[in-house]
């Protein structure tokens, strides 16, 4: 991936936390997570496994008896056929783990960060879903008649549920749709989510 900025300093990567193959014209790109946590956990597991095995083998070569668990593991492996239920269970778990690792490696991740358009070759911006919800909720609260509103922002749709304690519900909904429509535009996302608004009277207390 190279930018067309013609820099004297050569190719630069824009995303400090990942790369995005398949960049479009400011649309159609995603943030790719670095996958630090899965990598760290896997590295720890491999290091522990290799370390313990290494320690045990070296101590055996130094004429000390092998650790009890290794002798038992060798005995088990020599006694069980492949279709033993424990073996099948272990193999299934390992299969799931392997598939999980492949999925982690292949998928972008960072599902809560919504890419924003206006990315030139150099600038990549992302808006957290919770932040989008807060911004839209603040806009919705300005509308007269609205007592409380809850905004849920997904990657493809935004759902606003408001409670209006005065004014006609239809009027409030129309205003909400207008204001939130403008608000969504001002979020500047690459993929403009669909909006759904519902308004009801607050449940009466007592």
């Amino acid at each position, binding site marked *: 991936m190279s930018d067309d*900025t013609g820099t004297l300093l050569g190719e630069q*990567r824009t995303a*400090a936390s990942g790369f995005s193959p398949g960049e479009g014209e400011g649309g159609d790109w995603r943030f790719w997570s670095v996958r630090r946590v899965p*990598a760290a956990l896997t590295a720890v597991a491999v290091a522990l496994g290799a370390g313990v095995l290494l320690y045990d083998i070296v101590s055996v070569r130094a004429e000390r008896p092998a650790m009890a668990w290794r002798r038992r593991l060798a005995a088990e492996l020599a006694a069980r056929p492949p*279709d033993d239920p424990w073996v099948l269970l272990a193999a299934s778990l390992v299969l799931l783990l392997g598939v999980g690792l492949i999925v982690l490696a*292949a998928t972008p991740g960072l599902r809560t960060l919504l890419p924003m358009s*206006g990315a030139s070759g150099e*600038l990549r911006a992302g808006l957290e879903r919770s932040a989008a919800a807060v911004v839209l909720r603040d806009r919705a609260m300005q509308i007269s008649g609205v007592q409380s509103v809850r905004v849920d922002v997904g990657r493809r749709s935004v759902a606003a549920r408001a409670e209006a304690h005065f004014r006609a519900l239809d009027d409030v909904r129309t205003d909400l749709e207008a204001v939130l429509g403008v608000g969504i535009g001002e979020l500047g996302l690459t993929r403009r989510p669909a909006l759904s608004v519902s308004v009801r009277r607050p449940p009466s207390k007592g």
Partner: protein
Amino acid sequence: MLAIVNRTLLGLIGAALVLGAALVLVSAAGVDWTPYEGSSDVLLSAADRRRFEGRDWWWPVVIGTLAVVLLLALWWLFAQLRRPRLAEVLIDQGESGSTPLALLRGRALEDAVAEQATDLDGVERAHVSLSGKRTAPRARIGLVLGPRARPAAAVDALRSGALKAARTSTGLVSLPAEVRLRAVKHRPERVT
């Protein structure tokens, strides 16, 4: 870069696990072309295990391989924990480029960009960190949005304001940046 390494290693390890497990599961189903001779065989008999033990090279190879794996795993682990921050940015290369004429402290540039970013409308706080090379720095910027924030406008203002100023004042041709916007959750009040 780290993302590519991580994903490649995770994918390879995952594939190895899948292959090993699939081998066992498939041979349990009684298929012929696996190393196991059907369900009557055992997983790893004593004869299998000792097959290479007599050779001179066996144990050194095993110990060497395990040691290399251990070191690579530790390197991989510590690679996750580093997040190096750029200490200096090269401003003026001078004639031959071998002795830098002017260096700007990384923290100074970060603070300048952060201050200009905080001045933007709707931005409560900004956090900037530089990484990359002295001649090719990259910026990672976190913006915390406050009430009356307009995210797209803030990003535009950042691009044409703080980032452009950073580029012109340091003479960098380009400063790639990744910006993340988040908001502090506050109680839903009417913000006038």
